């Protein structure tokens, strides 16, 4: 096999004359969905996929792909074929009619009432406290 990459030429790879044959089952690896947990107790969040022949190898490979540049407590892998999903054609089931905005969380305004209560009772906002303590560091 000739290549512009000297490392490939150095490998002296054999010509592959069976390239157009359909692969056997074991050569078609499966995809696994990867879920990443930042801290113990927090939820696992979907971050992407890896290809692997077994769940064990999927975990080994997922560690380098998805955990090497961020804080990690735990990883899950799930075979993509085990994930059941709604159809994009059915996206309209998620729509709320305009008269029913009371069903949406964003329709509830309560922060102004909470802030007013906090001010009246001299309670400091927790978010504010965290921001201040970070600044001190």
């Amino acid at each position, binding site marked *: 096999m000739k290549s512009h*990459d000297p*490392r*490939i030429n150095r*490998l002296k790879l054999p010509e592959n004359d069976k390239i157009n044959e359909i692969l056997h089952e*074991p050569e078609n*690896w499966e995809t696994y969905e990867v879920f990443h947990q930042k801290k113990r107790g927090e939820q696992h969040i979907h971050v992407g996929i*890896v*290809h*692997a*022949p*077994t769940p*064990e*190898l999927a975990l*080994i*490979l997922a*560690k*380098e*792909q998805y955990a*090497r540049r961020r804080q990690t407590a735990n990883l899950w892998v799930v075979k993509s074929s085990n994930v059941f999903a709604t159809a994009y054609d059915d996206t309209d089931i998620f729509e709320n009619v305009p008269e029913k905005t009371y069903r949406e969380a964003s329709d509830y305004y309560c922060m102004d009432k909470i802030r007013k209560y906090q001010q009246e009772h001299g309670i400091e906002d927790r978010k504010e406290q965290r921001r201040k303590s970070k600044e001190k560091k």
Partner: protein
Amino acid sequence: MNYNKQQAAAIKDLLYKIADDQLIIGHRNSEWTGLGPILEEDIAFSSIAQDKIGQSQHIYGILHTLGEKDPDTIAFTRGVKEFKCCHFVEYPIGEYDFSLMRNFLFNHAEAARFDMLSGSSFEPIQKLAKKYRGEIKYHTMHSDTWIKQLARATDESHNRMQKVLNDSFNLALGIFEESEHYGVLHEMKVFEGENSLKSKWLETIIPIFESALLKIPGQDSWKPSLGGRKGLHTGYLPALLDEMCEVFKIDPKAEW
């Protein structure tokens, strides 16, 4: 702690052996970057190679504090005979079966070595051994998982793993070439020695091979590939050093 001349020489010799093994196997494994069997494995294997080179840099840094040259000069300007790595790490990457088997056999020796060093009386190496415990644990998990997978997958993959184990075992035994400084290091409680390391290594790898249905060669055929620890190397090392040091030597004073 103050060391006399003989003690200092023994510690330096030990550090060179550990770091040179890591630098050379790290460089070898990095030759797979861009050529790995699949994208995810390419990234994982390259990352492991990078970890090893990073660890060697740390050890060269310790050597620098003991009066040796700076890490880059140590890594890129020494002659072949000044390298103390074992023959095993010098060998070309071969096919992926060899690279994986080498990594498996080497990683377990390294894990056992660092485990022993985490109780060393020489504080810098003791701290270093603790610092990299997680990295090394991942390296062994990676190679264990691959070895078990390939040894059990198909007849072809099983036979290839068994053959490559047979072919690389004597090279692996060369990791444990006895040190002339054994007595001094043992007495100072810096390092328990290569024989003790070899027994710990065998205790770990044999059960893994059993579960993978692979067999290590019979003891009567063991002939460790010796000499590397004394600076006597195969022809593969000078070729590797020429390539590894090529860019550095164009302008050794360049700032990176």
